């Protein structure tokens, strides 16, 4: 599967000797696939030149950012975008930031906090690319998904450079849809394959107001970080409710009152994962907290722009929670716990604890839609986890799901996952079976899950989008060098 010496030299001439490697011995560092080569382009021009060479020689390529996940056909060239790590611009006046693919969310957010700004960090975590599309803990105030992508610089699968929205007409990044070409439906597909062919080389992301501190006052030594004080006019709480219905009603009212900076529908298992520093501690903490909560719940951060604003928001929050018979989790009222939860859930810096720490892997089903309906689906998916928990295949999280509203409205994301040891073949097969079964149920019950597929099965239920998508990909990728699937994390 290796490149011929001549072709290798052509790629090498673009990126330089130091930035290409075809030694199969180091490929497992990336993934199990046999890559033809790994190439590290340094800028858009190099990406374009590499992509054009791929077209000339009919070589499949796939780009990655930090490289967490992805699907990679055997023999493809991997474009590791690591060298493209610049924050190009932070435009405070027009509230957008332009980043290259390897700027991670943590870096951008830290720069934004200094300026009283923030952006949507995806639930995957702050260690992922800032240009990643998706949803996150702060969706209440930062929205989510493709709402946050403004203008994009895109190297098409053929190697043309397309600049969308305002960038295409006025060399400005403030809008993704005009004046200039809007390719939103192609570039930020929510349905499978979910990934745009070609390579995003720069993207503008929308910025939002940040009422918190320029930097959190963190003290202690890893992994025992704490805040030396809770920042002024901020508060974090976890509330549990006697029923799903009451929780949902409270979530809705909080959204309508527009008082929450963040409302993250954590289950108590995820709270336990967040606040503990080892698996053993987490297991013990989960049992303890699970005994304290009265039912499902959510985590809320209130952030006031002034003391009066904070007092108002707090009062409204307490009223709504009280009317829904909600109960505050005592452990989370401890400033040491409150502080680190607040920090981790705005910096999105503990997603790995929530997902990978227990067994090394998790399989998830995320569902978008009306929150009360998707929660009903998730309850069924949770019950379907119970046999796996009993057999010891997956971590006992009480069969719980999680989720949150987006833009303080009814729309939201609901997600459920199984955490397991991927080296246990039986557990792996059982989890994959659960994921397939519950995704199929979601499809039958007319919910949309991003795990659905293949396209020719779900396409007929979605206006035959797959036929259009097939035509589009043939048009923009005539040589078939930019395959579908995977993600750009």
């Amino acid at each position, binding site marked *: 599967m290796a490149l011929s010496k001549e072709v290798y030299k052509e790629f090498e001439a673009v990126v330089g000797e*130091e*930035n290409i*490697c075809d*030694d199969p*011995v*180091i490929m*497992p*560092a*990336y993934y199990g696939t046999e890559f033809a080569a790994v190439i*590290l382009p340094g800028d858009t021009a190099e990406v374009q030149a590499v992509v054009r060479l791929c077209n000339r020689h009919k070589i499949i390529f796939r780009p990655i950012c930090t*490289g*967490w*996940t992805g699907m990679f056909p055997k023999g493809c060239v991997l474009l*590791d975008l*690591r*060298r493209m790590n*610049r924050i190009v611009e932070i435009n405070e006046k027009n509230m957008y930031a332009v980043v290259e693919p390897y*700027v*991670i969310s*943590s*870096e*951008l957010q*830290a*720069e934004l906090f*200094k300026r009283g700004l923030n952006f949507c960090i995806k639930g995957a*975590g*702050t*260690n992922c690319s800032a240009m990643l599309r998706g949803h996150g803990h702060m969706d209440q105030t930062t929205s989510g998904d493709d709402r946050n992508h403004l203008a994009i610089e895109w190297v098409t699968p053929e190697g043309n450079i397309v600049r969308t929205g305002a960038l295409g007409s006025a060399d400005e990044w403030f809008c993704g849809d005009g004046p200039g070409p809007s390719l939103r439906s192609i570039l930020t597909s929510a349905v499978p394959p979910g990934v745009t062919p070609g390579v995003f080389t720069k993207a503008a992301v929308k910025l939002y107001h940040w009422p918190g501190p320029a*930097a*959190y006052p*963190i003290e202690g*030594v*890893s*992994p025992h*970080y704490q805040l030396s004080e809770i920042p002024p006019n901020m508060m974090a709480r976890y509330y549990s409710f006697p029923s799903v219905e009451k929780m949902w009603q409270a979530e809705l009212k909080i959204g309508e009152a527009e008082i929450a900076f963040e409302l993250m529908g954590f289950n108590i298992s995820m709270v336990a994962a967040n606040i503990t*520093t*080892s*698996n053993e501690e987490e*297991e013990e903490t989960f049992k303890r907290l699970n005994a304290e909560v009265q039912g499902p719940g959510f985590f809320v951060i209130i952030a006031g722009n002034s003391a009066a604003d904070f007092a108002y928001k707090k009062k409204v929050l307490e009223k709504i929670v009280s009317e829904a018979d909600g109960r505050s989790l005592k452990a989370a009222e401890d400033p040491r716990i409150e502080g680190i939860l607040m920090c*981790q859930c705005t*910096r999105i*810096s503990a997603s*790995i*604890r929530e997902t*990978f*720490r*227990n*067994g*090394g*892997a998790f399989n998830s089903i995320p569902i978008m839609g009306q929150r009360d309906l998707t929660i009903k689906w998730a309850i069924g998916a949770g019950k379907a986890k119970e046999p796996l928990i009993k057999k*010891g*295949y*997956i*971590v*006992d999280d009480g069969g719980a799901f999680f989720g949150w509203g987006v833009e303080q409205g009814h729309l939201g994301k609901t997600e459920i996952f199984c955490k*397991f*040891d*991927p*080296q246990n073949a039986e*557990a792996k097969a059982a989890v994959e079976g659960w994921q397939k079964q519950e995704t199929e149920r979601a499809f039958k019950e007319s919910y949309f899950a991003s795990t659905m597929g293949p396209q020719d099965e779900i396409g007929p239920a979605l206006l035959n989008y797959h036929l259009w998508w097939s035509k589009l990909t043939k048009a923009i990728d005539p040589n078939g060098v930019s395959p579908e699937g995977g993600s750009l994390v």
Partner: protein
Amino acid sequence: MGLEQYQGDMEMCCRCSACKFIPMQKVKGSAFSYACPSIARYNFHAYSGGGRLNIGAAMLKNGFKYTDKLLDVVYNCQLCGACGVSCNYAMDMEVLQPITEFRLKCVADGKTNPALDKVIAGLRKTGSMVTARGKRGDWAAGLNLKDAAREKVDVLYHVGCLTSYDKDMQKLARAAVKILQKAGVNFGIAGNAETCCGGRAYQMGYEEDFLNQAKKNLAMIKKAGIKTLVTSCADGYQAFKVLYDKYNLKGDLEVLHISEYIARLIEEGKLKPRRKVNLSVTYHDPCRLGRLGEPWVHWEGKKVPGDRFVFDPPKEYRRGTKGVYEPPRDVLKAIPGLKLTEMTRIKEYSWCCGAGGGVNESNPDFALWTAQERIDEAVATGAEAIVSACPWCEKTLGEAVKESSSALKVYDIVELVEKAI
């Protein structure tokens, strides 16, 4: 021991890339956010902590195949442990240990680095990791120090190879003994009976040479009845305190870094820094005093079958939490007139000076590149000087300063204390 025992840990890596950056809460912007010099310099994922683990796991599964590129990956790593600290904020898995075992295996399989072979040949011949010109104790001529190998002392001052033989670094030994004398400590040096701690040989992958050195040192210490050893070399500190213990050799020997000992002397009122040192400084945590100076945790157990990566008995991970971070800072704060400003990457997530893991010898350009990154970070604080607590750090940082024509001064902590007493 052996790579095999870490198979489960290596398979736990989820390629999240946290190992490339300082702990996410601590990221303060786009500058100085990287933790690992190797991936920062060479960019391919193979050079990261996670990449190394995934290669190790694949090789255990599919067999070992050494190529030039693989050996380039293996030896272009300072084994500084920053990857492990960042990973272990969230994950329960060993990171640095399997990376170290991989290197030990390379050496055991004869896949060595020629530059390191040369250093080890010198060690076998002279007992030193640096070129030995003259005798080891020559620096102490005229100082009338006790010979700890023959005379009864409370404290053995272990000088270390670089400080003993490098004419530019011998000032650190003279400063250290002046401080100990001023505090009235009954101490001695082993002089020509001192030999290399073996720590750097271990970092380079030469386990047997490390063990030989450890045994020689401990035999001398036992014979002399030494109870407390103080060293001003971070590599020596880690070797005596952590590595010897890892191999069950240390016994009840008390091992202290000079900064810990000075902090203790100040606290006990035996040492009083009175003279003003009007200088604004920033402190560089040596890796092997800081995160890698954390005591070894002896543990044996088995994975509990099931859904979680947990063990019976429970495993306590060394996450860099218990390194030596405060004593050097306490000492600096005790010096009148001195102003300490912190860099972005400090304590458990400090950036390496570049010298560790044999990189200083096998790839001096990379060592210098790494040090230059640190100098840039120090300059960004506005400090006049960068202070460290290890001769290897001072040497490498000093070379980077010279190379860049920076006005930044480089000191070891003992030099500043010497000025203050």
